[in-house]
């Protein structure tokens, strides 16, 4: 039976995992390579790392960090942040990423999804979508939620699937960072409209939230703070889910 994936997410600047709201009050949580190694050993099913400050200067160090992480883990690695052209995807895959996630660039230029999936295969192209409610509609937002687009969330989700995305990383900007749980209604809406895997992101604060995330039919559950702060170990989340009847890899 296919297991629900528990995916720690590392927000990275250069080689440090950070936590910060809108680039303010950025707090260093630890060394990215060390944290990646730890999560791989302690039962993470996959790792996600995002370059949250993909400036030209920082990028080189970030790519080196991807290379270093790929060397110390033996679980799949998804890398995103700052991906704007096809060569960015190639660079990250060559650095050792198994999948690359595209966000704003895909919204700006949807053809990039098709080009990327034709070149590298759908299995390694993840489209990250940030959703937010606006006037009773679910819309796509970009630039970390600061910029509203005209795209309707569900229309976009279906479109990225038909363009060849292998997976959707779905973050609700209405719940992200608040730790009150995933955005169940948004996630259900997305999973019931696409047939590719969906990773739920944004809002985990306690164990029950993981279970509620699973109920949205998302096959991957992504979390950052609850793991980085040490509030939960990966294995304790999995043991809890197993008790609730959710298939997990222990």
């Amino acid at each position, binding site marked *: 039976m296919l297991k629900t994936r528990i995916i720690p997410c590392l927000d990275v600047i250069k080689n440090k995992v950070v936590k910060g709201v809108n680039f303010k009050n950025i707090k260093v949580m630890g060394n990215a390579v060390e944290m990646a190694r730890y999560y791989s050993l302690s039962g993470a*099913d*996959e790792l996600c790392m995002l370059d949250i400050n993909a400036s030209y200067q920082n990028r080189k160090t970030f790519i080196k960090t991807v290379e270093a992480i790929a060397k110390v883990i033996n*679980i799949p690695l998804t890398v995103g942040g700052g991906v704007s052209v096809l060569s960015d995807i190639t660079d990250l895959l060559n650095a050792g990423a198994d999948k690359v996630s595209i966000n704003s660039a895909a919204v700006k230029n949807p053809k990039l999804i098709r080009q990327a999936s034709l070149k*590298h*295969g759908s299995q*390694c192209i993840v489209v990250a979508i940030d959703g937010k409610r606006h006037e009773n509609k679910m819309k796509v937002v970009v630039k970390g939620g600061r910029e509203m687009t005209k795209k309707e969330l569900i229309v976009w989700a279906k479109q990225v699937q038909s363009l060849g995305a292998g997976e959707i990383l779905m973050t609700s900007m209405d719940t992200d960072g608040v730790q009150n749980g995933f955005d169940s209604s948004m996630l259900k809406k997305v999973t019931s409209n696409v*047939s590719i895997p969906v990773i739920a992101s944004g809002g985990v604060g306690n164990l029950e939230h993981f279970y509620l995330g699973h109920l949205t039919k998302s096959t991957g559950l992504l979390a950052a703070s609850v793991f980085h702060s040490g509030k939960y170990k990966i294995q304790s989340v999995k043991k809890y889910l197993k008790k609730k009847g959710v298939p997990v890899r222990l």
Partner: protein
Amino acid sequence: MKQKVIGLIDGQSGNIGSINKAIKEIIKGRPYQLKIIRGEFDYSLFNKIILPGQGAYTTLISNLKKLKIYKPLKTYLENNCSYLGICVGMQILSDHGYEEKTTRGLGIIAGEIKKFKSKKLIIPHMGWNSIRLNKEDPIITNNFDNKDFYFVHSYIFQNIKKSNVLANTHYGKKFPSIVKKGNIYGVQFHPEKSHKYGLNLIKNYILKS
């Protein structure tokens, strides 16, 4: 003592970094050497060949032909020499692949590669799933039964002889996750991404098979 030579084929179908790293760790301090195959090669120089692959069947076959790897690989396999194909590297052992178009495979293990059919299934089959052993084999000792491995694929081996199936996995229906004929192995999952059991499988293939 003469060193055994392991060939790792770079068919430009996904990254060979992880598998390269895994093999190096396994053979460290042992009488083996690793050579990356990127073009025409003399198959008689290799004791084992590993071919990892991602993406499309058609692409891998045409890459191998372009790189002039196809012919010596086919001869190598027709001589029943030791091989481990990963994901698409397994799939191309079949007679045909039906992806965007029908492509002729290496024709080593009878059967064909077709898409998962059910409309209810989330495709690709992506994530950790368990394998059930059909029989014992040096590369999968008993304790591999029911263990999870990392899969990512939309196509499966069909119309394969049961005697060529070492392990099955269930996703919507049962499909072959490890195949074998003579000295030739194929795994649908990615052992190089499958943590300790995945690494053990590669280790068993190299040291015990």
